[in-house]
């Protein structure tokens, strides 16, 4: 719960940026686990804070989780860290149990794979008007990625089965970006990946997700802003 009073020796601070889906992965995980933390909004479009530059000198990116002052970087590493450093947290583990290394390997694979949605989607909106061939390739890629995720989900309630787990947390922040990707790529998630679309609606009902994600309209405004900043028509 952001803002709740913490003990300094266990204090959690999340350096983040409001629209960052990678930051949202961490917010959702912290909420699911019932771990109090301080949310620290970073100005990424202006000058980066000294705290951010000190905490992630290699990449200078968010999210960064500070635990008793020590930085953990990379969203998926942060999720693994939360499982491992807080085994007694209120909420369940994100990863399947240590008794099932194969299930854990599968979860890690699909969590990492979910990044492909963002990568392909970003290519779509970064393309200039005349790049028809590149657009077709980016469109084909995102459609394939969503199809693969749809197949992996299958008829399960969540990627983790009955448990809202690592893959669900890793993928759900990209959901508000999908309407923009659909428009830029001229495809439909409902047609391409209907089970995934239903999963997205189920996830939106979870408090941790509802409180962490922004509406698609806000995300779309942000993309439009970035296009101006990058000079893309």
């Amino acid at each position, binding site marked *: 719960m952001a803002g709740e009073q913490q003990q300094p020796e266990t204090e959690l601070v999340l350096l983040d940026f409001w629209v960052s889906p990678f930051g949202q992965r961490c917010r959702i995980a912290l909420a699911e686990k019932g771990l109090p933390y301080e949310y620290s909004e970073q100005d990424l479009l202006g000058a980066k804070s000294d705290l951010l530059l000190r905490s992630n000198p290699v990449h200078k990116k968010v999210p960064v989780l500070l635990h008793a002052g020590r930085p953990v970087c990379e969203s998926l590493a942060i999720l693994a*860290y939360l499982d491992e450093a807080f085994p007694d947290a209120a909420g369940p583990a994100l990863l399947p149990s240590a008794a099932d290394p194969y299930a*854990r390997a599968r979860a890690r694979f699909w969590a990492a794979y979910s990044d492909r949605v963002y990568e392909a989607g970003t290519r779509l909106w970064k393309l200039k008007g005349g790049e028809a061939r590149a657009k077709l390739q980016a469109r084909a890629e995102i459609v394939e990625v969503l199809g693969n995720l749809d197949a992996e989900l299958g008829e399960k309630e969540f990627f983790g089965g009955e448990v809202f787990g690592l893959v669900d947390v890793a993928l759900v922040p990209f959901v508000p970006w999908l309407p923009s990707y659909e428009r830029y790529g001229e495809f439909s998630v409902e047609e391409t990946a209907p089970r995934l679309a239903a999963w997205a609606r189920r996830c939106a009902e979870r408090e941790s997700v509802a409180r962490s994600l922004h509406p698609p309209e806000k995300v779309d405004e942000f993309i439009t802003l970035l296009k101006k900043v990058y000079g893309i028509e």
Partner: protein
Amino acid sequence: MAGAGAGAAASDELKVLGVWPSPFVIPVRIALTMKGLSYEYVEEDLYNKSALLVGSNPVQKKVPVLLHGGRAINESQIILQYIDELWAGTSLPALLPSDPYERAMARFWAAYIDDKVRAAWVVLVFRYNNKDEWWAEGVARAGEALDTLEGAFRDCSSEGKKPFFGGDGIGFVDLVLGGYLGWFGAVGKIIGRRLIDPARTPLLAAWEDRFRAADVAKGVVPDDVDKVLAYQQALLARLQ
């Protein structure tokens, strides 16, 4: 036994699908050897992929694939963690440390290598025939990544007091970076100096020597530079 029925038994047969110079395959083979495991190695032709490879990794059709008890595990770093978790115990070397923060640091540096070193490697391997400013850029990018990793090594090795990123023994980050050494040797021959330059990154250069000399690396980390270069030429010819 905990986990009985939850997956393949630790004693089930192991098979690795790979190509011998791949920076992603080599770490897996070394890890299996470190854990004292024997496995069947299957050399793939990436331009004529076996039905087994395509069936085991239908989403990406890439190597390495670890086949264990009829199940496929994909992605080099994920396979390393699978091996580490399934074959854990006081008498076996651990690839990842047990402390959660140290594990997070290892994962961070492994992700860094997969991002920055891999990007440079793609240019150095696949753009070689162009050998234009792009290729020189690949050498420069590799140098920058190695500069950063020199600092990482200093941190991970207690200011160079320990021999490996993993401390006293080879660990996760060592394996991920070590997978590239065969190609570093090939690039070194082309540019006329070691890619990990002792004058620029002395700790890493000494680390490279130690890693190459390790028993578990023998026969897996390619040391025949001409063979690697010939493989590259054949690869580039296929891509024409």
